[in-house]
């Protein structure tokens, strides 16, 4: 039965990797700046989910904290980039 869990973890990591590739495509190709910011938003959320999946795979609780830090810094980065697009500067 552990074979089921191992293969489902491999499948989940493959799908999350493809999702990160799609987000990276939109981040690199996106026609305007806000498309790139949306791609970055999707990229960090997917990286956070990938961290949780790696934590399940290794049985270590440490990866959860890395995932939480990725979520925090990604949210701050998205808001800072959107604020920059809106006003032209981040801190007024």
């Amino acid at each position: 039965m552990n074979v089921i869990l191992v293969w489902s973890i491999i499948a989940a990591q493959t799908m999350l990797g493809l999702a990160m590739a799609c987000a990276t495509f939109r981040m690199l190709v996106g026609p305007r700046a806000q498309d790139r910011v949306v791609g970055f938003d999707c990229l960090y959320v997917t990286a956070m989910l990938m961290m949780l999946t790696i934590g399940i795979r290794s049985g270590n609780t440490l990866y959860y904290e890395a995932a939480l830090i990725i979520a925090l810094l990604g949210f701050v980065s998205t808001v800072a980039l959107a604020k920059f697009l809106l006003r032209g500067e981040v801190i007024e």
Partner: protein
Amino acid sequence: MNPMAELSLVETILVSSFLTIGAAFTLVGAFGLMRLQNFYARVHSPTLGTTVGTVCIATASMIYFTIIGTRLAVHELVAIAFVTVSTPVGLIILVRAALFREGSGSGRASSSPEGR
């Protein structure tokens, strides 16, 4: 090193299905981000990953660490709550920035004169 030997069949199937469903929803959302046509259609698509994907994968992690740790591990609820709250806030500011940029005519959206 890898303590996967302690799971029964039902628990294994539960964790595996939550993992696979969450990853599949995230993949569908990111694929929509890649394929949809304009910005306002693209901005809604990754939220499929941030809601259903995050809840499913964090639930799988909660179940797994509760089983192998033989005590209740609910700290993934913090991640669920934070991502669920923070994503709409960031996207609202981003869509407001996009509306501002298209309205003020920076770039090729300046077909309308300054009457806007």
